[in-house]
């Protein structure tokens, strides 16, 4: 913890060595976060770069009221969402209620699936669904918070999540079936 504080102070003093240390410590996990929100590796790199520049320019606002990693992750997520918004990725977003029929339970375990496969599944989701799924399932935001972040209604957030969940379950089922057969 003390180490983290010196690291932050070094970054606040624009010490290039401290900045590089911080980058190297968090870049891997943050790159994974960026991958989840984007569709390609290039987009993820763009977001990661933009977000780390933001981290270093805004580090003086860090007040140690949360873990440094959580603070950086929040910046990653916000940068990713504003990046997608800039790319007009949310244009296809709409309320979808057709997918509310539940898929049969018990068969959608992720036990046999690898991280890369799961990432591929998430990336195949429509952009709106992808973001809502990331925010709700992985980051643990509530629907009203997601609505605020994405600038959509709470109902849209819920329906988008339901659609994402259903799409994922179908895909997992298909994958499991092909694996078992």
């Amino acid at each position, binding site marked *: 913890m003390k180490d983290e504080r010196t690291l932050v102070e070094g970054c606040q003093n*624009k010490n*290039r060595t401290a*900045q*590089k240390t911080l*980058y*190297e410590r968090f*870049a*891997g*996990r943050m*790159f*994974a976060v960026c*991958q*989840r929100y984007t569709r390609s590796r290039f987009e993820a*790199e763009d977001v*990661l*770069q933009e977000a*780390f*520049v933001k981290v*270093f*320019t805004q580090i003086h606002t860090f007040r140690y009221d949360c873990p440094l990693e959580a603070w950086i992750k929040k910046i990653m997520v916000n940068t990713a969402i504003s990046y997608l918004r800039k790319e007009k990725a949310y244009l296809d977003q709409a309320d979808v209620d057709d997918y509310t029929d539940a898929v049969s*339970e018990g068969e*959608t*375990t*992720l036990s046999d699936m690898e*991280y890369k496969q*799961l*990432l591929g599944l998430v990336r195949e989701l429509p952009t709106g669904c992808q973001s809502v799924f990331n925010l*709700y*399932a*992985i980051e*643990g935001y509530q629907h009203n918070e997601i609505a605020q972040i994405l600038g959509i209604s709470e109902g849209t957030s819920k329906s988008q999540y339901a659609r994402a*969940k259903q799409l994922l*379950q179908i895909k997992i089922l298909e994958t499991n079936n092909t694996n078992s057969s």
Partner: protein
Amino acid sequence: MASSEEHNFENEWRQRFDDASETPPPALWERIEAHLDEEEEHVMVIPFWRRTQQLRWVAAASVTALLLVVGGWWLKTNLPEKNVAASMELVQQSQTVASAPSANPSTPQASAKQSATSLKTNNIPVESQVVAQIPTEATGEKVQIAAASSLGEASRFMNRNGGKKVRNVRQYLKQSTTTASNSVFSEKTIASVNTQNSTPSSGDQRNEKGTSSAEIPVVVMKEEGKIASPSAIKVSPEMTLAFLESKKMRELLGHPKRQPWVAAPAEPLEAIKPKQLPKEYWASVGVMPASYNAGVEIGGSRLATTNNAPLYSASASFNNSARTPSATNRSALSYAFQWQGGVQLSSRWSLESGIQYLQGNSVYQGVNAFSTSSNSYINSLESAVNLSDNTIPRYDFATISSDKALIQTLSTTQDISKPSNRCIGRASTPPF
């Protein structure tokens, strides 16, 4: 049941993704670094801005100064018009005085009669025509003349140049006389009688050109001594028109209000054109107060350190009796007088020169700056100089401290050699 199921789904995904890590390409850090370098370059500007923010009164003072300058410029550009208006009234009054021999000088009829008689005596065929406010078609080419203001301009011209320009004017008028005698044409000069209202009306005074131009040189010659009051000067319309063109009087603000419509001959206009612009002279005198603190230190702790004494004991080991306050700097009110003059040679070129006297009153007083009584540095320096060369005259450093001339030189060079703007900057900057 459903909610726990939902929970399981999310937990499963979260667990898989929470610890996920992927190595980004190594070139990414270089890109981020380049970005950060750019950002820092942008930030470089900020400290200066913050500093100026603290000096809000400097901004306020500069805005005030700017307003003063702009106001002065505005006043200066608008002033000539007022001068013209003033001299115009003066000339109008003098014209009414000129027509004093008649019984009732204020009436236009009387002056008209007078001119009519003068025309008769000269026996020159003149097509006389009374010009009213509205020009008639019969007068041929109509030219818009600001008679009143141009008269004023003419008189001003006479005033300024005085005797020097009289000769020019006389030649100028002779020329016009020869052209006038060759051709027969009508001449009108308007002297607006009603000076109070300054409306161009009623009073039309007709002068034959020959008589008027013949009169002017004589009058001007007489007036050489007393230039201040140009009484009884009659100006031919050609001259007034010429001056009008050169001075661009028509472009003055508010001028059209005083413009009567007058028919004037076109020929002389072409024949007589000013060959060069009248020279303009100007001068200015200025005083600039300032203050400056030299802030010079000679001696003191700096010499003490050269004395091989440790820093912490510098003041203790130093002989205090020998160098009590080593130097005092005192700022005082300094001032500069400046005088400038110039002459306009042409529309593009002007010759300007000036002289400035700067009195710097800031004082630097070095008490025993080169004291030798206990300073081994000076002693060794003295011995080194005296031993090094026996041919040069011995220089006694002990006398330097009492050498008034040297101290005087020190103080004066510090005062004068610094630029004035630095003085101001130094005086105004609060300590940080």
